[in-house]
């Protein structure tokens, strides 16, 4: 019963958020602010994780493919495929669920317990529309950019590691990453990213928006936001993969 109540409450919040903003320039300002805080501020962590993940995948591929009958270019091909299909859209989204999700839940949760959301309401402002919509839109527009950037860095990481260790010849790696490229895999990655962005921002905002109590409950909401977002990301990943790739 409680879960049904929460789903209902979540749907009502999302519907309230997706209304036409009262003032366009206020919305645009909030959107730019959220582009920076949710997107630009995540670039450093995405860079480090993507670069190292790509390097690790390339080494693991090289370690597993030791048959002389399998061309070395397979390492580049497999690294690219793994990054495009799963590592960048899903794993990076899970990391963003931790970084961005906890930030949204704690920010909105703190606003709730310090009566800032009540202040918005008595001013006649629709709080979900003012607080949540810019975050959802910013994430849905910016996360795909981050994921493309992550794929690029991951591939670069694999190439650098191949050169440093001498395990993968540069020319073979470059041939591999160019081989059998199906543009739909990138579309699939982008679709997944947009869905995950919506899940991360809306679920985290809901958890923050419905906080009752004090700082302990804000911390709890922040943790719940990450846990629920992560579960929903993996669950929707399975459904989208089944729908789009089979």
């Amino acid at each position, binding site marked *: 019963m409680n879960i049904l109540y929460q789903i209902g409450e979540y749907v009502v919040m999302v519907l309230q958020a997706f209304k036409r903003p*009262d*003032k366009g*320039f*206020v919305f645009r300002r909030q959107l730019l*602010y959220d582009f920076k805080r949710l997107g630009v501020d995540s670039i450093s962590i995405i860079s480090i994780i993507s670069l190292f993940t790509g390097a690790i995948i390339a080494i693991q591929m090289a370690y597993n493919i030791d048959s002389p009958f399998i061309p070395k270019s397979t390492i580049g091909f497999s690294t690219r495929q793994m990054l495009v299909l799963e590592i960048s859209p899903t794993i990076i989204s899970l990391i963003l669920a931790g970084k961005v999700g906890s930030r949204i839940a704690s920010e909105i949760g*703190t*606003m709730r317990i*310090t*009566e*800032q959301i*009540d*202040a918005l*309401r*008595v*001013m*006649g*402002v*629709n709080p979900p529309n003012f607080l949540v919509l810019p975050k959802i839109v910013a994430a849905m527009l910016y996360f795909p950019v981050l994921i493309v950037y992550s794929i690029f860095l991951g591939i670069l990481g694999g190439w650098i590691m191949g050169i440093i260790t001498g395990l993968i010849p540069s020319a073979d790696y470059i041939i591999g990453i160019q081989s059998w490229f199906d543009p739909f895999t990138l579309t699939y990655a982008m679709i997944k990213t947009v869905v995950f962005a919506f899940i991360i921002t809306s679920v985290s905002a809901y958890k923050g928006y419905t906080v009752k109590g004090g700082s302990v409950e804000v911390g709890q909401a922040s943790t719940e936001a990450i846990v629920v977002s992560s579960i929903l990301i993996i669950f929707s990943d399975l459904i989208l993969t089944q729908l789009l790739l089979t």
Partner: protein
Amino acid sequence: MIEVKNISKSFGNQLIVNNISTTFEEGKTNLIIGQSGSGKTVLMKCCIGLYDVDSGEVDFHGRRFSNISDKRRKHIRQEMGVLFQGGALFDSLTVEDNIMFPLNMFTEMGIKEKKERVNFVLENVNLTGSNNKYPAELSGGMVKRVAIARAISLMPKYLFADEPNSGLDPKTAERIDELLSSLTKKFNMTTVINTHDMNSVLQIGEKICFINHGKLCWEGDKETILKTDKKELNDFVFATELTRRIKR
């Protein structure tokens, strides 16, 4: 004038506000007093529309406000300023942006006009020159004064303040009371203040409503409150050694 007509509010099976009727008069500082947990804050939140009442109604100059849609409430809300207990300033915005927020949302003023209004209200709360500070850089008293500045930035007809001087030292608390009282006179607002501070009661209470266990127990002003023989009110008013000495 704000008319509260027979309003009741409960949470679960606990009745918090029990059939209260009163009027808050224009150009006066109206005080709601009572012990912690007596139902003052819930009564105020019913008046400003943060809680829907179970029964009864709240009218602002004859316009019904309770239990109607947010869309219909919006017009009256723009005539209302609210000062929350902790100030409720937006942490990510500067003092200027906090005060400008209602102006951005509800007026078509140009940037120059908005800045003039910000400076005007900051001058009224004695905070000239604090425009670029963030809430985290302000003292408790300054936060309350910025919150008052934001509440009056749209020149509201109605001003609500929930325990405006809680957590402040006596001198700053007195300044906040004086400020609210003088702004009420200056802008002819209907001001409603929740408090359990007897200094505020005796300083600015032009109309006082005493709430006890969710019921309106007594109504009067700062002159009559010390002369009443109502036991519950006397227990509240003369709860401290200081007030008992004054009485003697």
